[in-house]
């Protein structure tokens, strides 16, 4: 499509403005963005750089003696020291497993729900509200409720439901304490809490797709699945990419539910610990500020690398 502005006019527009006006524009621009920049520096840049600096020291929180400079010892320990790396690498694995399971399952489920609820049926609004409700609850509350559901006694909700369905042949299971099902239980309750949020975003994207395309597809005698693949999926591609990116970053920030279930509900620590849990435990339980900082720096690097890879692989295309 030809540009609406023809070449001669473009030369005129690019002519430079006088020097004084440029300085005034720059100054006003800096002044107007100063509050936001100060906030960014104070609350994002300073802690970020402080974390990098502190991770090079052997230091406790508010310690009276001078901190010892350790160079990269904290990082070396995270990956190679038999005492420290066991739990760090395990939490790395847990985070990856969590991400690999939750991203496709939660996104797929959200897409399914969004497609199902994108119709003009009576009562569809009720169902949309109903599926979105868990998102409103803070994750800590969700963890406490699911702790009761997953209680290991035969009278726990899940155990009694399983017992009812199987007629008592399956014994009560320790969902949170057993290494095999602990992470699965955490994944289940995380998906339960988060699917509504993605569903609402995808629903909005679905409603952007013009109805004419579906009519055209129907005229071409496309069945439901072909409509989905050729009309729906391309139409929500950008939103879907955004949702997947968002879920990836959130999947590496799993903390609330893991903390509550391990510290107050007896969940299997080895099977459910995550990187953020390790970092906060290093501070709260062992007062090891250097290690906590190094874990958070590693977490940051992991998220940056994964986000860059995802952006490379899934490039968002502009319309038309």
């Amino acid at each position, binding site marked *: 499509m030809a540009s609406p502005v023809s070449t001669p006019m473009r030369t005129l527009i690019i002519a430079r403005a006088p020097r004084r006006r440029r300085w005034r524009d*720059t100054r006003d621009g800096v002044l107007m963005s100063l509050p936001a920049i100060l906030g960014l*520096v*104070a609350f994002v*840049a*300073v802690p970020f*750089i*402080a974390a990098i*600096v502190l991770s090079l020291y*052997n230091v*406790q*929180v*508010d*310690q*009276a003696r001078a*901190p010892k400079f350790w160079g990269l010892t904290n990082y070396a320990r995270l990956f190679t*020291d*038999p*005492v*420290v790396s*066991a739990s760090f690498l395990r939490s790395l694995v847990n985070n990856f497993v969590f991400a690999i399971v939750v991203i496709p399952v939660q996104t797929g489920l959200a897409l399914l729900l969004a497609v199902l609820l994108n119709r003009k049926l009576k009562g569809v609004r009720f169902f949309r509200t109903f599926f979105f409700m868990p998102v409103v609850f803070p994750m800590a509350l969700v963890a406490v409720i699911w*702790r*009761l559901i997953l*209680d*290991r*006694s*035969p009278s*726990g909700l899940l155990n009694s439901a399983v017992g009812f369905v199987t007629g008592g042949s399956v014994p009560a299971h*320790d969902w949170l*304490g*057993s*290494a095999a099902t602990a992470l699965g239980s955490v994944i289940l309750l995380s998906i339960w809490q988060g699917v509504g949020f993605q569903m609402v975003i995808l629903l909005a994207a679905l409603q952007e797709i013009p109805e004419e395309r579906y009519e055209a597809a129907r005229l071409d005698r496309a069945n439901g699945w072909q409509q989905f693949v050729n009309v729906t999926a391309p139409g929500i591609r950008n939103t879907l990419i955004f949702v997947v990116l968002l879920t990836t970053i959130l999947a590496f920030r799993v903390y609330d539910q893991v903390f509550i279930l*391990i*510290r*107050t*509900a*007896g969940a*299997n*620590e*080895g099977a459910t610990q995550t990187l953020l849990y390790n970092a906060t*435990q290093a501070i*709260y*339980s*062992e*007062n*090891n500020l250097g290690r906590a900082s190094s874990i958070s720096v590693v977490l940051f690097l992991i998220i940056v690398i994964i986000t860059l890879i995802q952006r490379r692989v899934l490039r968002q295309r502009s319309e038309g």
Partner: protein
Amino acid sequence: MTITRTLRRSALAAVAVTAAVVMTACSSAGGGVSAGTGTGTINVWAHQGQDSENAALQAAVDGFNKSQGKVTAKLRLISGDTYTTTITSTPKNQLPDVLEIDGPTLASFVYNDKLAPLSDYVAKGTISNATPGSVAEGTSGGKLYGLAMYDSAMGLYGNKKLLDAAGVTHPTSFDSAWTPDQFAAALKALSAADPSGKALDLNESGLSGEWGTYGFAPLVQSAGGNLIKNGKSVGMLDSSASVKALADFATWKPYTDPNADGNAFVDGRVGVAWGGHWNYPVFSKALGSDLVVMPLPNMGQGAKAGAGSWTWGVGSGTKNGKAAGLFVDYLLNDKNVTAMTQANGAPPATKSAFTADTLYQTGGALALWGEQLAHACAADAITKDCLAVYRPVTAGYPTITSKFAGSLSAVWGGADPKKSLTSAANAIDQNFADNNGFK
């Protein structure tokens, strides 16, 4: 995006600002203890305990303010779960004049210069009236930093009705404490007789926290092991005695009620509960004369029990040490100590109040546990006839308790005790080595 000159300059400015902020934040604040004039306002911080404890403490503060006009004390309650973390993260020049400290964490606060020695500000009479346990708990590096209003007593509670119905004879003295086999047999009999099929409640959801170390390190010590000895944990925490203690502990899981609602014992779902003095008001109200107290199981070297609780100290940044000392003197007088221990059922930590406390003297309901406290010892000096063992007084305690409780929780979840305890011991030793033994 090309790197323009403006961008480079602003990046440099950001780094400079950040470096300046980090440097000022990291520099330690000056100022130490000063005795002050003995007048004025002092700040008092305490942990938020049960409602009755908070009321008793507030009454003590109000009584102090009314009893004299020179010093006014202001009380601030901080959530109990995060109390220690709060004190750890508060720089010493922002600490209050008087603060409560969880006993075993006292040594690490002394290490980080957050407490002032008490002997300069607290009356000699108060110090000499403190029980040996209170003094032992509050002493670090040879100096006294904390004195307690109350100690703690713990053991097994039993429901006499359920025990008799199952035909189980329960121990009434330390010599007749259950061995691990007898305990398992008792649990089995109780479970068979109980419609819920469970016999024991040991508050399993709190195992990975301080309750794990407080309530179950005595099992390890009773078996002949310990958490740490002479600054080394390997060889002690993962000794065969310690491993056996935890292995026996894990065999009780089939008989244990998960107790999600916390009412397993008072509702009669279980016949035995692992608890302490803080449960006594509720349990005695629910069970009345059916409530019996028993020692913990004897894992080989005699039954042991946990001890130690919150103590009171003076902040190292106080400008009014004399006034702070006056407050501590008043807080530890018989009237206030008795009022507090009536409120929470704890054993008093002052000699005069302890001998007057009918609950813990001969004939009282918790006399058995009172006997424990009369035969108390420090964790590094366990003898055959000591019954209550205080938790180790060392600046490395946070890591010790975190690793042990984590091990305990893992073993409860099915992990191998030897592997779990060995990795815990290695982690503790590494932490000590990193900090030069906390000298």
